[in-house]
């Protein structure tokens, strides 16, 4: 009854002006209402509403049975989620910061990503692992990692990363509905950076597809998550200098929207990839290789990458030096353009 009422209310409001963190909250709320098998679990997701308030209000609304504070135990969270998922539930597990996902790496690598393959789909583990990632908010060490590439090298797992309130809610709902496990990376820096109209209803944004934020002719800028505002700033500056750029927000990091990437590079002949993870082993290399495989003959310049350096994410006094800036991106755009 209460649920019915709520659902009605939802449909009356068409859109709300939300921050990304609110949109994510709204995405979980929407699915907790619509799908009884969903549950939220993790450290401090209950009464506390999550350390970033992503689960704010959910405990009060859905009770401690659907919004579960767990012990401090990442492998336990993911390991029990495997059991829950195999047995009919859809866990939305929160890892408090991406830098704390490593204790669960074994579970994700050897089970979450392999169970469907191993049983030809007899068992599957649809679940969402949410994790805030990235530097730039003056957090203590390890809190600021951006290690998506450790998970895109793991067949059986999808990796998604929104950049705005609208695509955050839509992608999260897609992730929850996906028949396969999805790692959902949330750029902390974007949590409260902007607001956007977000439909109150359930809607989805397709996993596996990028979106073109801007159409241009000379250079393809490829980025995602927290680097989108940086890339956009550089793109505008480039435009002022007369260089017109395509700007692609990948949205899904695995599987990549190879078509959008290759179409764009075939058009422009030049690519600048922006990510905050370390260069070596980073997803930028996957994109470079994709371009090599699909659009080699169209390239007019070496592919540029603007990334974090090959050092551990530094303590925050130096994090601004580690992170790509619009200046560095612009420089690479110009370098590619003038090659």
């Amino acid at each position, binding site marked *: 009854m209460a649920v019915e009422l709520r659902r009605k209310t939802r449909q009356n409001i068409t859109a709300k002006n939300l921050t990304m963190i609110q949109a994510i909250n709204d995405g979980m709320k929407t699915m907790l209402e619509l799908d009884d098998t969903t*549950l939220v679990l993790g450290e401090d997701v209950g009464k506390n509403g999550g350390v970033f308030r992503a689960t704010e209000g959910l405990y009060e609304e859905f009770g401690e*049975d659907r919004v579960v504070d*767990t*012990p401090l*135990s990442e*492998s*336990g969270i*993911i*390991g*029990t*989620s*495997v*059991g*829950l*998922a*195999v*047995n*009919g*539930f859809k866990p939305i597990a929160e890892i408090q910061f991406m830098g704390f996902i490593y*204790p669960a790496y*074994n*579970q994700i690598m*050897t*089970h979450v990503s392999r*169970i*469907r*393959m*191993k*049983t*030809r*789909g*007899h*068992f*599957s583990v649809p679940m969402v692992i949410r994790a805030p990632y990235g530097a730039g908010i003056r957090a203590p060490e390890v809190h600021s990692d951006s290690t998506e590439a450790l998970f895109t090298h793991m*067949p*059986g797992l*999808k990796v998604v990363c929104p950049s705005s309130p609208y695509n955050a809610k839509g992608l999260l709902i897609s992730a929850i509905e996906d*028949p*396969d496990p999805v790692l959902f990376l949330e750029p902390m820096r974007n949590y409260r950076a902007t607001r956007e109209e977000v439909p109150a209803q359930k809607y989805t944004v397709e996993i*596996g597809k990028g979106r073109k934020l801007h159409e241009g002719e000379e250079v393809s800028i490829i980025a995602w998550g927290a680097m989108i505002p940086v890339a956009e700033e550089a793109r505008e500056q480039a435009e002022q200098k007369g260089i017109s750029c395509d700007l692609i927000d990948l949205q899904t990091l695995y*599987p*990549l929207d*190879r*078509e959008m990437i290759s179409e764009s590079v075939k058009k422009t002949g030049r690519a600048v990839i922006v990510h905050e993870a370390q260069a070596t082993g980073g997803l930028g290399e996957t994109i470079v290789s994709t371009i090599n495989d699909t659009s080699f003959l169209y390239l007019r310049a070496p592919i540029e990458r603007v990334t974090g350096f090959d050092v551990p994410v530094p303590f925050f006094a130096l994090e601004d030096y580690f992170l790509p800036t619009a200046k560095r991106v612009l420089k690479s755009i110009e370098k590619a353009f003038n090659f």
Partner: protein
Amino acid sequence: MEANYPIKTIIDDQGDFIDDLYKDQIDEQLVENMYYHMYRIRTFDKKAISLQRQGRIGTYPPFGGQEAAQVGSALALGENDWIFPTYRDHGATLTYGADMTSMFLYWNGRVEGCIPPEGKNIFPAAVPIATQIPHAVGASWAEKRKGTDRIAVAYFGDGATSEGDFHEGLNFASVFKTPTVFFNQNNGYAISVPIEKQMNSETIAQKAVAYGMRSVRIDGNDCFAVYFETKKAVDLARAGKGPTLIEAVTWRTGAHTTADDPTKYRPADKGKDIVEPLSRLEQFMKKNGFWKEGKISEMQAQLKEEVDAAVDAMENYPEANVEDLFDHVFAELPEELVKQKETYLELLEEY
């Protein structure tokens, strides 16, 4: 500590009753069923070892010596419960209803061996040690959430208790009072490492204290002690009374796997005094009038046939199909994988 966790035994090494509590329940049907399954999985185990020696399957980890632990525990489960085995627990899964051909296929490198018969909640054997323990917690938690009375049992060895996942799994179970049975087979060794080097605690049962969890230590070579104590734990779990850690003290009579040579690390006389569970049961049956020579040799012959037939089925199984490499990674194949698959299949055509 050991004194706090006495080993519960019902019939001793000579097959004599030392605890009459369950005497009434140990009837012909139970005894025969026990013997049937123990003999059956022993036959399977021996055959698997010999197939490996002949190069007809891959490396194989025998469970010889642990038949009472595996059969006794599996028979204590209900039809719709969940079972999370390791690589050494095919005796338990076979008893619980796994398909024998599948088990041979598994050890011949075929994923088909991971797929249980429809309706049987048997999870694929966990190879990374202890990882299945939280899975069992999650699956049984799911049953609790659904309001059923189904439970889950996790099988694991003595070595597994050293891994973090053992700890995290038991902690979750105790906090969420999940209907889980943690069935430990303490066979004295983790490959070459004896239990004294694996842990400083005298028993595994006492590890439950860390979780405020019920635990019990049993003679793992006494199929009846295993059966009744597992049943008790299962019943408590079903009744919402929470999880139990069971330590079944047993002995691996053979090698860790067919690639292992226990003479390298196990003193020759160690374990010599242990009466292996099938002969203990046989003695018990003979002493208590359950041994019907004719019936039994007929059963044995029939089981040998079953095993041979399963080997035949395994060896005549359709060859592994290269498309399977790709087809089951995701519910729907991503484009890039479609491309990899097509290109590869074309290439294979060419050859």
